[in-house]
């Protein structure tokens, strides 16, 4: 039982990270019907921005002295990474996607793959291909709860994810930016007729999705200890599957999908074989595409005429 609970906790924390990344895929898809393959590299850049920001704030010296990195500095690291990735996301949309927006749908898709490859290679050039140990922005403390080992890192992942989700919910449901985003995702021309500057709304969507991916990148570094410039490929793909599983374009769906993929991965790793932990994601993808292609929370909407 305690082993099961252990896998569940590990699965949910990994799933939280997938969910944070999946949100960006689903929001951009919802608004532009574009699979933003470069999103996985925005996640990677977020992780590296956190890495370098923590370094610039002197985390190494503190570690050597045995001092913990202060919480407020950890928040600074998070904010800087989220800001940098938001900017990167907006730039990608402006420079790469906007010019091809009215081209046939295949063109933006290929552009997205191109941007993704470009950023991976730039990452290897700038960050070097060597894996880096992630700095202990949160110094790990382990404690046992009824036979289950919980760390403050896992708790941090849950708290940060929950806070960001609540923030996102508020933004999408209760603010004018959120209303504009939902309007654009239903009907671009109708949104324009409301007086919405759809270009700005699309930028805002990229900024928000990218910032969430950056948070996912930092949490991933804390959880998985090392990062490298290709970290986005597999993790990004799993997050994308999570978005499809939940129903692409559906925000709560991305969260549900992320958590389920994380859980499935850990349970398979724990009870079947660690060798299959990556494969299970794709088994799930195939099953969902056969049984319910619109995803768990996706709806097939019929327009009334």
């Amino acid at each position, binding site marked *: 039982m305690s082993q099961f609970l252990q896998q569940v906790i590990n699965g949910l924390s990994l799933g939280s990270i997938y969910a944070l990344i999946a949100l960006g895929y689903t929001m951009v898809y919802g608004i532009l019907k574009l699979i933003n393959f470069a999103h996985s590299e925005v996640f990677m850049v977020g992780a590296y921005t956190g890495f370098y920001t923590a370094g610039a704030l002197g985390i190494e010296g503190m570690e050597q002295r045995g001092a913990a990195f202060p919480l407020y500095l950890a928040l600074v690291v998070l904010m800087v990474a989220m800001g940098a990735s938001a900017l990167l996301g907006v730039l990608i949309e402006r420079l790469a996607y906007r010019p091809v927006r009215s081209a046939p749908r295949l063109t933006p898709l290929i552009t997205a793959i191109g941007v993704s490859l470009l950023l991976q290679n730039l990452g290897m050039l700038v960050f070097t291909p060597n894996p880096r140990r992630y700095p202990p922005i949160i110094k790990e403390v382990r404690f046992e709860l009824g036979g289950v080992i919980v760390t403050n890192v896992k708790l941090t992942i849950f708290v940060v994810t929950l806070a960001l989700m609540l923030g996102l919910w508020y933004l999408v449901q209760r603010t*004018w930016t959120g*209303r*504009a985003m*939902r*309007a654009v995702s*239903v*009907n671009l*021309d*109708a*949104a*324009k*007729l*409301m*007086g*919405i*500057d*759809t*270009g700005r709304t699309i930028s805002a969507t990229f900024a928000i999705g990218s910032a969430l991916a950056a948070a996912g990148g930092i949490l991933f570094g804390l959880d998985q200890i090392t990062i490298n410039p290709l970290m986005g490929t597999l993790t990004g793909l799993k997050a994308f599957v999570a978005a499809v599983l939940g129903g692409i374009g559906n925000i709560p769906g991305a969260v549900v999908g992320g958590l389920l993929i994380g859980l499935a991965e850990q349970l398979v790793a724990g009870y079947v074989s660690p060798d299959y932990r990556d494969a299970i994601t794709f088994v799930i993808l195939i099953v969902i595409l056969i049984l319910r292609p619109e995803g768990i929370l996706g709806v097939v*909407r019929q*327009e*009334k*005429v």
Partner: protein
Amino acid sequence: MADAPVLEVTDARVSYGGIAAVKGVSLSVNAGEIVTLIGANGAGKTSTLKSIVGLVPLKTGSVKIFGQDIKGKQTHEIVAGGVALVPEGRAIFGNLTVRENLQLGGFLRRDPAHQKRALERCVQLFPRLGERLSQEGGTLSGGEQQMLAIARAIMAEPKLLLLDEPSLGLAPKIVQEVFAAIAEIAASGITILLVEQNTRLALKTANRAYVLVTGEIVLSGDCQALQRDPRIRAAYLGEDVHA
């Protein structure tokens, strides 16, 4: 006429991939008027309206709203100049509530005081919407969706309202209700350009009319005169006229 017309379209041409849909349309709408643009399927009515709000580009010609050329402006900027379009097929935000649809209609007028006042006015105009504010727009009936589309368009208090076939697909009783509301909107001082295929109704509602045939205006004038015109009666009112 000292003032510039509210809307002045001059020699507008619109084409889709080389195929001309609007071939040099000129029309004007003066303050306080209801003007109708009638024509058969595919005549280019929707394309003309879309070009006025910048949803399709003009190939040549110009559109002036309150004397200002829309050239180079994006739709949201044109709309901010006091124009609203109720699009063909309504284009309700189906998974947003009726209230949210209305709020978005007033996107350019976001202060809570205005929102509250405008929403009350919409509910007064269409009491059915008032009962359904927290329902998703997509669950409304066709007639209710048309009412919502019109209400949404007047949330920002436009000075010029463009309507694209508001009677399309509605039962006669609902059409009456919708057109009564349109008349009330006009009476409140909003200038209207009404696109319709229901010629009889359009000529009854409007002051002046333009008749569009395959992208060109072939006839225009006072509605009362046009109602008696044998060409109109034969071609659009389905009457057997021996002229």
